[in-house]
């Protein structure tokens, strides 16, 4: 059955990507609507694929690196769809869906139990992990939006307008979408981190012990708050703020990869 969900999800995400690309290329509203509908369908089948995988392993979907990646992809799709619905803008789908598809496929094509499990149980822990991964997904989306902003801004400044530029969101809207996404990320990571401390306290009887993951998470939080502040300032307003957003995401990637895999004592997969 999980194989079936895998095929359905890959098909839905791939077709969704195709529709979004065609929408960007032709501007036909129907294609954009199809892209959104197929992404929604993929979200549902992806959910069942995650559920099947968890049942198969008798644990939570973020039990290993690949489960975390799949959950990341699912939350990225969810965040993107929510953002698309909120801002009524479908042109970004062509850039966001390939990431979702890549994370889903990498996670589900890899062996399920390659790494040993962490101690993972309880509602507080589940919320801590889910909110942290949601934050990373939202930051990933703000990264995609900032890259589009920078590309469009460069084309407009250089007066080299290709056909696609006319179908992309306006710079102002891209900025707003990026802000919305970062806001979701900041709130999620803040709550997720607090829940993490509460869970550690329950587990060990102390809120804090040194772990590079704590430090980098606080750095990430600080950097995105700084982005909010600078994006409204005279010197940073516009492209510079978007560059900071891109830089911030590289720190997130560092946190998700290097810190998790090699430095952290208590975090491995999220």
């Amino acid at each position: 059955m999980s194989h079936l969900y895998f095929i359905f999800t890959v098909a839905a995400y791939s077709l969704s990507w195709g529709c979004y690309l065609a929408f960007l290329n032709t501007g036909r509203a129907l294609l954009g609507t199809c892209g959104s509908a197929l992404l929604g369908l993929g979200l549902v089948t992806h959910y069942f694929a995650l559920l099947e995988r968890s049942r198969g392993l008798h644990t939570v979907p973020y039990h290993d690196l690949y489960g975390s990646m799949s959950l990341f992809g699912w939350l990225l799709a969810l965040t993107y769809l929510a953002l698309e619905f909120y801002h009524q803008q479908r042109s970004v789908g062509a850039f966001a869906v390939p990431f979702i598809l890549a994370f889903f496929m990498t996670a589900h094509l890899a062996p399920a139990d390659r790494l040993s499990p962490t101690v993972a149980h309880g509602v507080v822990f589940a919320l801590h992990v889910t909110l942290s991964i949601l934050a990373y997904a939202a930051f990933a989306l703000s990264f995609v939006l900032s890259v589009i902003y920078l590309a469009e801004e460069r084309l407009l400044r250089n007066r080299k307008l290709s056909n696609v530029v006319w179908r992309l969101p306006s710079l102002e809207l891209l900025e707003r979408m990026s802000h919305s996404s970062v806001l979701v990320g900041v709130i999620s990571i803040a709550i997720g981190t607090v829940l993490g401390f509460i869970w550690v306290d329950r587990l060990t009887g102390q809120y804090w012990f040194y772990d590079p993951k704590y430090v980098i998470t606080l750095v990430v939080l600080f950097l995105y708050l700084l982005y909010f502040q600078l994006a409204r300032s005279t010197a940073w307003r516009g492209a510079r703020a978007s560059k900071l957003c891109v830089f911030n995401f590289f720190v997130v990637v560092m946190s998700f990869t290097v810190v998790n895999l090699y430095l952290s004592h208590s975090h491995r997969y999220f």
Partner: protein
Amino acid sequence: MEIVLVGLNHRTAPVEVRERVSYTAEQARRAASELRSRGILEETLVLSTCNRSEVYGVPPETSHESAAGLSSFLSEFHKVQPDILSVSLYHHYDRHAVRHLFRVSAGLDSMMLGEAEILGQVREAYKFAYEQGATGPVLNRMFQAALEVGKRVRSETELGTRPMSVASAGVKLAERIFGKLGQRTALVLGAGTISEQVMLQLRDRGIGQLLLMNRSLERAEKLATEFHGTVVPWGEWGDALRSPDVIVSSVAAEEPILERAILEQAMAARGNRALFIMDLGLPRNIEPAAADIYNVYLYNLDDLGGIVQQSRAMRENEIPRAETIVDEHVGKFLSWQASVELVGLVDELRARLRHERTAFIRERMETMKHLSAHDRQQMELLMGELLEKLLLEPAERLRGEKELRRKIQNVEALRDLFLSNREKQ
């Protein structure tokens, strides 16, 4: 149920003729009324815009004969000599008339390819004629289909989305930066024709606030009144450059009126909010080096002209897609028209055969005197049943099969084939 169209447009008639053959609402009402009362047309609709005057109708007789009558009527109605009018008028019949209207509605026949206004004008003309009771089932169906074509072409193709003038290119670029312009402010420098065109575009796109700055205060005030703008004193850059998001400059000046240093100060004062500048002056009004200022987007005439060229090519590339939509709806309309006509034809055929049957039986019974009255009655009934049976299946198929109706393109040929004898008699 034929359709006739007689009209002229920007391609067939010079403006001197077009202005004489245009219609006010009252004239359109009167023309439609007279055309029907004189028996030239049964259904009528007058479409009059600045570039075209067309009369669509359903004539009581063949469309070619009606077209001649319609041309004479137009000459008399507009008091234009027939020889002047005849070189400008075009005549389209049936499927060609339908196709012409659908292309007009799609913006394919407009002077500016894909312009949006024509769809509204077709809608208004139809609404007006419908309310006057001038249209009937054919024109109602035809104009409703034309409005559908117009909507589809605009939503499914990019025929009308790209800018076709320097002014619209500039305003569309501003929207690329700021999105909707409802909350934005534009400062227009100069009050000439180009400035006026840009203000028209800005107003159409719902600009929040318009500021005008011109050396001649009188002209600026006149334009400000027309466009609900505010006049700003010439040269007071410090205040004037603080609020606008868009600056449009079209001033006759030998030297740039806005130098980089002035704009740098202004950007600092306005917290580096993005500023889009359209420099439409020749020589240029804005120092070119201002393009390097952070968050300033500077476009001159050549830049905007390049976008217009690119857009024109893009619009022309969209023509085949728009034509496909037009063809699809012409096919649908003709299929509907054929179904109505074919059902009518079957009814006529049935009446004709009944008549023939009665005459045939009467004639043959003269030679079969040995048959009783009962036998004769039975024979008449049997022949009647046979005729009904023969006609039942084709009639039902015509009602139920769209594809069959589509295949039968020429109902008149069928009418000639089956009903021509009666006409000859």
